[in-house]
Every structure is written in structure tokens, then in C-alpha cells.
């Protein structure tokens, strides 16, 4: 069991890389897998997310989100305050919130869970992420790094 698991969820579709970029920014800050920390990029994991949840004491999950905010706006959700989620944006499978809800029903959620959503703009397959998303990922990585520094 890891002390903390940081997962960046995304796809190679423009701003949908927000979670991956956050992981890249954390790596740039010197945060690596090891010493009780697991840091990983996931490509639309669907239900494969669930087994990962039960093996950590603290999960930090970063994903792109489409809400009503400006592109690059970061929102933090805690253990129960998940955004309303009506219809998935990903293809053919469970979205992140669906997987978390299913894991919750199965008693597989970690004791501590933080979900970060980064508001995205364009998600055209194959396109590059926008400057706003890159900047948001860097900001969020700093926030997470500060959290880790305070906790360990």
C-alpha cells in the first residue's frame, strides 16, 4: 500500500492532456515514484481505475473537466463533493466519476481522496494542449508538491 498515489488521467486530445501535464510538471519538480509515492499517467482507465484505488492511503487524482469556468480554472473536490456528472465525455466505458462511485459502492475508496478538475477548452484528437492548460497544470503541480511537503 502506498502512502500517496497521484494519478493524472487524460488522452492525447488537446486540453484533455491536463492530467498528464500535471504529472509531467510534478516530475519536473523532482517528485518521483518511490518512498511510498506512486505517480502515474492513465489514458482513460475506465473500470481499471478501481483496483488502483484500494492500494493507497491517499489518492490525488487529476482529470480534465468541462464545467462553466474559464479554461485552465482548477477545482478541487473532496471525498464526497464530486461534481454532478450526467453523461460521460470519454468513449465506451466508465468515466472517472462513474469509476469512483462504483468503487465507493464496493468499499474500495482510499481513506483520503482529492479530486482535481482542470477546466478544458478544445479537445480535438491529436491537437496540442492550450497555453492556459499548460499553465494550470504547472500551478496545480506546485499546489500538490506543497501539500506533499507539508504531509511528509
Amino acid at each position, binding site marked *: 500500500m502506498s502512502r500517496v498515489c497521484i494519478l493524472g488521467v487524460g488522452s492525447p486530445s488537446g486540453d484533455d492532456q491536463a492530467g498528464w501535464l500535471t504529472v509531467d510538471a510534478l516530475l519536473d519538480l523532482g517528485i518521483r515514484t518511490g518512498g511510498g509515492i506512486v505517480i502515474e499517467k492513465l*489514458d482513460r482507465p475506465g473500470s481499471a481505475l478501481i483496483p488502483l484505488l484500494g492500494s493507497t492511503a491517499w489518492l490525488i487524482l487529476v482529470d480534465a473537466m468541462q464545467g462553466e469556468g474559464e479554461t485552465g480554472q482548477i477545482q478541487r473536490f473532496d471525498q464526497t463533493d464530486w461534481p454532478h456528472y450526467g453523461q460521460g465525455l470519454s*468513449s465506451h466505458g466508465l468515466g472517472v466519476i462513474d469509476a469512483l462511485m462504483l468503487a465507493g459502492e464496493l468499499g474500495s475508496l482510499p481513506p483520503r481522496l482529492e479530486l482535481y478538475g482542470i477546466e478544458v477548452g478544445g479537445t480535438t484528437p491529436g491537437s496540442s494542449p492550450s497555453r492556459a492548460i499548460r499553465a494550470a497544470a504547472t500551478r496545480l503541480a506546485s499546489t500538490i508538491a506543497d501539500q506533499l511537503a507539508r504531509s511528509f
Partner: protein
Amino acid sequence: MTESLRSVSIHVPVLARVEGEGALDLRIDNGVIAELRLRIFEPPRFFEKFLEGHHYSEIPDMVARICGICPVAYQVTAAQALEKLFGVELDPWARAMRRVFYCGEWIQSHSLHIHLLAAPDFFGCSSAIELARIAPEEVRRGLRIQALGNELMDLFGARSVHPVGIRIGGFHAAPALSRIQAMRDKLRAALPEAEALVRWAARIQLPPDDQAFISVALRHPTDYAIEAGAIAASDGLLIEAESYDDHFAERHETHSTALFSTYHQQPYLVGPLARLNLNRDRLPEGIKALLAETGFTLPSRNIFHSLLARAVEILLALQEALRLLDHYTMPESPWVPVIPRAGVATGCTEAPRGLLWHRYEMDDDGRVVSARIVPPTSQNQGRIEEDLRLSLLNFGLDQPDEALRLHCEKVIRNYDPCISCATHFLRMRVERT
């Protein structure tokens, strides 16, 4: 006393998102179905054009992108077709491992469909999340089996989604013996879970249903057909993939961008129940005994037995993978050399959702001149419409609108079409006249 017959119009405008967009239109005039149309817009059609001009070596990776759930089916079918044209004789190792790779896809795809998409319908649940409240152990077991299927795909494909392991002539690499040994242990451990899954699926109360339909599936001389075989139909047809066009036709319908397939001008069923109906004699004796114990008799005319058929095929795929990996040795080379030649290549395998047929015209340099891909969902489209019509009549057209909509969704999801993920999020508009 006279009872006035209802007139109802149900439109389900969005059935799907990325893997295929679909909709359902149902109009009942004075107690009679006046219109019933399943509209599906299948992305795989675009790929046929994308493939033109590409070198044969690129084809397995390109066609893997057609579907995130059944990429192996597309890869193996394309490879089978091109290897046949190029006169490639696969090494026995590669031939066996192709089947193992395919088993992984059946296991993950079937488990996904049973537990996350179809089963909630039969327990009065709107989603797998609700199902997990009343059957947590069964859902956990389903997720474990699905994960094992993904792991098996990852073993040979380097990743489970859009794997990259297959090349024309074999595989790019052979997994190390240590990884195979670890996989064998997991497969063996999963067998009792899969047996329990079959028993559980057999106990699910299904809607009564009795329909006459033609089953179409591959049939192999000795094995339960997965990655190889001739095309068979329940009326006795047995043909090679090259003769597909002599018996099957695709046609456009104005209400759908997907093609409708017919067999001798009739709709037909492909998929797990069609496979079991046609290949029940190819099941291992242990599985036959288990089915006899559960009381599941074949052939079945209840299309809702598709869920149980998927459970049976999960058990079969686990057993097959274990059998084929039992005496695994590292090959001298995981692939054999290929020399391309011009001509027409056809291939056919059993994707999780049913028969998948490919045809490629290749030039002298081994580049695609034209491609044609007939996926299972478009083959089942006519059958789904026919089934909806029959099962709605059986269900009762005087049922409330919401009940009608849910029943339609249940029927559609039962086929596990590529739009199945979205059919859990059906949005509908009801108009009364």
C-alpha cells in the same frame, strides 16, 4: 366495453458518443407499431478510406484504433486476411498465441458487458453502481475477471487498449516465460470464479422470449471458433470468407449511416448466442456438463440468453488460454518474414460481438488499394430492429412509455452493440398524439 388504443411516439435522439452515434424512433399508432427505426452511425466506416495507400505493415496498428474494446479482433482479422494473400504460414507458436491474445479480449469485453452494461437491466438497476449495492461480490468478481482479460491482452499487445503486439507474420515480441508462468497461475485461479459466474448468470430471471432467428458464426473443424473457421449459418450454410458476398449483402437505409447486413435478404444474429447455438458441440465436456447442471439448453431462441452465453464464453476463453499456455516455450522468432503480393485478401474472425469480416485489395508494393470492413454491430442492426418489434409486441404496447423505453434499451444493450456504453444514458422525448 371497448378500450381505446394508445398512440405513442418515442424518440431516443442520442444513443451514443464516440464509438458510434445512434438513436431510436418508435411510433405506435392505435396500438400498432407504425415506425421502429434504430439509427446507428458507425465510425469504423471511416477507417476503410483511411487505410487506402497505407503499407501492410501499418494495418494492424491502424485497425486496432477502430474499437477501444475489441482492437484484437480487428488486428487478427486483418492479419489473417493479409497473411493468406501473402502466402504466409504462421509458426505454430504464433498461431496459438493469436488465439490466446483473442481470448483475453473475449474475457475483458464480455465481463465488461455482463457486469457494467447488461446485468443491471435484469436486476431493475439503472447502472452498475446500483447493481453493486445489491450484488457487490458479483460486481467485484466481474471487475477481477475483466482486469485479467486486460492483463492477458497487455501480455501480448504491450497494452490492453489499442495494443501493438501483432504484426503481419506473427507478433513483434514473445512474452518471457516468467510472465507466462505468472499469467497461468492467475488464469487457473480465475477458473472457479468463471464457473461461479456461469451459475450466477444462469440464475438471473430473464424476460420470457421465444423468437425464430438465423444464427451466423464461424465454425472450426475441431475448436470452438474464435480466430479461425468457416462461416456457418443455422440453416446449414458453410462457406469460406471469400464467399461472403455471395450470401450476405449490405444495404443503405435512409435513416442510418451504418449499413444493414442481410443473409439471403433476411436479418440474422451474430455474437455469443449465435456462436453457442452453432458450436455447442465444440464446447469442452466440462462446460457442457456445467450447462446441463444449470438447465441451459441449446440452441436457444431466447435472445436474452446472450448474457449467459457471454459468461460461458468467458469460462471457455480462460480454459483455452490456460491450455495453450500450459506448455509455453519461447519461439525461435515470434514472426516469420513476409513478402507482399498484389491481390484480394479476405479474413473473418469472431469479435466479442460477433462475426467480423475484412476485405483488402492490395497492390504489388503491399499497399492498400481499397478496404472493406463489416463489423458485428452493423450485421446485428437489422436483427435488433426485428427483435425490438417482436419483443415489444410480446412485452405489450399498452405498457407505460417509461417501461417501453426501458424495455427497448434492454433489448438493444443485450446485443452489446458498439454503442452499448451510451445506451445506459438514453435520453428520450415522448410525444403523444
